[in-house]
């Protein structure tokens, strides 16, 4: 009886260890990447995406706005443009967007245009409209698609991402993350000046 009892205790302990080890291994396997294979971005990092699009024609897109109207890149042909990817959850995006709004008005006479592309369009048009209204944004807000994200963002999920497109339709700069307001305005001016008169 005694040896049977000892054997039961040992067997039970071994089973428990196996079970715990299995649970712990399962937990280890559940590590979730925030930003796989990337490092924290520098503020206003202009190198992000540079190798992808800088110096190349901006990829064409046709996306829906919050009213369900189709808006294409070609609608802004001949105008200096910022294509700004943002998300409703993105605090730095919401700091930057009022600046973009201000510059879209300040440089309207130069033909300057801002287009916001909402990365998390799955939250719905109403939620997006509420957010942009709170931010005082009146420039076009479009709903992203997987194709637009593939064409512009490649594999990154970092927001905000801005693509500065000159009058000829060429991407002259790509920035990731929040920089200063002065940096942003300098880029806007450069975009307006680029591509000739």
């Amino acid at each position, binding site marked *: 009886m005694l040896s049977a009892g000892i054997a*039961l205790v040992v067997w*039970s302990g071994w089973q428990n260890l196996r079970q715990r080890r299995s649970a712990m291994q399962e*937990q280890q396997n*559940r*590590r979730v990447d925030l930003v*796989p294979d990337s490092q924290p971005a520098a503020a*206003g990092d202009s190198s992000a995406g540079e190798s992808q699009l800088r110096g190349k024609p901006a990829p064409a897109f046709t996306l829906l706005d919050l009213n369900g109207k189709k808006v294409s890149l070609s609608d802004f042909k001949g105008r200096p443009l910022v294509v700004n990817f943002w998300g409703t959850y993105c605090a*730095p995006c919401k700091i930057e967007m009022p600046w973009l709004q201000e510059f879209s008005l300040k440089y309207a006479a130069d033909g300057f245009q801002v287009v916001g592309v909402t990365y998390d369009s799955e939250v719905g048009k109403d939620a997006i409209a509420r957010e942009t209204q709170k931010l005082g944004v009146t420039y076009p807000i479009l709903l992203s698609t997987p194709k637009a994200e593939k064409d512009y963002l490649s594999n990154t999920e970092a927001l905000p991402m801005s693509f500065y497109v000159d009058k000829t339709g060429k991407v002259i700069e790509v920035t990731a993350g929040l920089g200063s*307001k002065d940096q942003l305005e300098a880029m806007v001016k450069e975009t307006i000046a680029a591509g000739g008169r």
Partner: protein
Amino acid sequence: MKVTRLIQTRRAFASIAALALVTGAAAQLGSAQLGNMDTPAKPRATVLYAAEPQSVPAARRAVLELRFQIIPGFHINSHTPKSELLIPTTFTLEPATGVKPGAPIYPAGQPYSFPSVPGDKLDVYAGNFTIRLPVVATQGDHAMDATLRYQACDNASCYPPKSLPIKIVFTAK
């Protein structure tokens, strides 16, 4: 649920003495696991749950401590971010037999500003943080499935909200 079934099967054979023995052994295993987690072989951008087994008194209110680790350079919104526009960190539990959980107790956040806008204060978790979970559990081993939902940023950019499924393993005795 697989783990829960294993526990139930084992419970049919184990004596109280055996339970005490394996609890100690499991605690040692947990320490080893946590040690590995603190020193990952390849640093990556991750939020981790320190999956350590815990022991609490059975049949009365106890508190589990759930420890999470955010890698350097990143932060996540606290449970009470200062803006309604931001996504708070939330913790949700699946029902588990023999366990009555209370409302999770979130730690206070810490103030954070993006470098380019130093006057704009957010409320975030960075580094290590612990969520405390009150429970009343029947005697024995328990495993609960839970999810931590969070949204992370670095010093300039933000990343989509993520859900981190975890398994809470503890013994009530």
